[in-house]
């Protein structure tokens, strides 16, 4: 379990860490901790993967054509409907 102070510190900057928004100093510090803490390593990996999966899943969703058609009708944009 994440009992050490380091683990807790990491937890708080985790969001900015995976987004690459942390200062170089803090990054180095975190990466040093990750080398020796298996739990935090797993948390970072699975958190990254979680975000990535949602990204991939999202990219595959498109606007259903009939929803698009009804939208253009509602907005009186029929002329601009693409076949």
């Amino acid at each position, binding site marked *: 379990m*994440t009992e050490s102070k380091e683990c807790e510190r990491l937890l708080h900057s985790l969001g900015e860490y995976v987004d690459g928004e942390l200062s170089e100093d803090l990054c180095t510090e975190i990466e040093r901790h990750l080398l020796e803490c298996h*739990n935090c390593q797993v*948390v970072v990996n699975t*958190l990254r993967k979680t975000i990535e999966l949602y990204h991939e899943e999202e990219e595959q969703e498109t606007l259903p054509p009939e929803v698009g058609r009804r939208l253009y009708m509602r907005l009186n*944009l029929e002329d601009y409907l693409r076949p």
Partner: protein
Amino acid sequence: MNEPNVKKPLSVQALKAGNREEFARMVEQYSPGIYRLALKMLGNAQDAEDVLQETFLKALRALPGFEERSSLSTWLYRIAMNEALMILRKKRPEAFSLEDQTTSQEDGESIEEPRDIVDWCCLPENELLSSEARDFLNRAVEQLSPALRAVFVLRDLQDLSVRETAEALGISETAVKTRLLRARLKLREELSAYYGHRMEVLGYDRIERM
């Protein structure tokens, strides 16, 4: 085929002046994202379509007075998110009465400690994004409180920056960061339970399941 239109940036000036062709281009560019936003917020195709239509109807009326304090996309997402939250409030008021108590807690300092420590990243892609897994991903988002879900949808699914997300929701950037981390950690926890179970089913060795 649709390429030429997408490349030219939208002219806010033309939009404000009521140029219909420009408005059509705006609809084409933003309707998929707004529909997905609504679908993720509401989990229901009919409601999502209502939000989509209302958003552009409102935008059409409000464009002449658009003050450009935020970008056009952030402004549209703000309208869409307000519509979605309004429907949610009507349909599930209980989620919001709960919200009042939890929002302050959600913006507070303490972050819940990760519980499920299993590395499921090694699972193959077809397992991670099987149709069953996809359903699970969607249900996990629906289980987030509206406040956490809104931040996650804008920042991680629609790719808005922290600042744009804050503008679209009318909350501080600090609140965005805290809620985003909470949302991500909750989803990580859900996904770890799900994929951890899949690993067991598929006969992967589970290391250090707590």
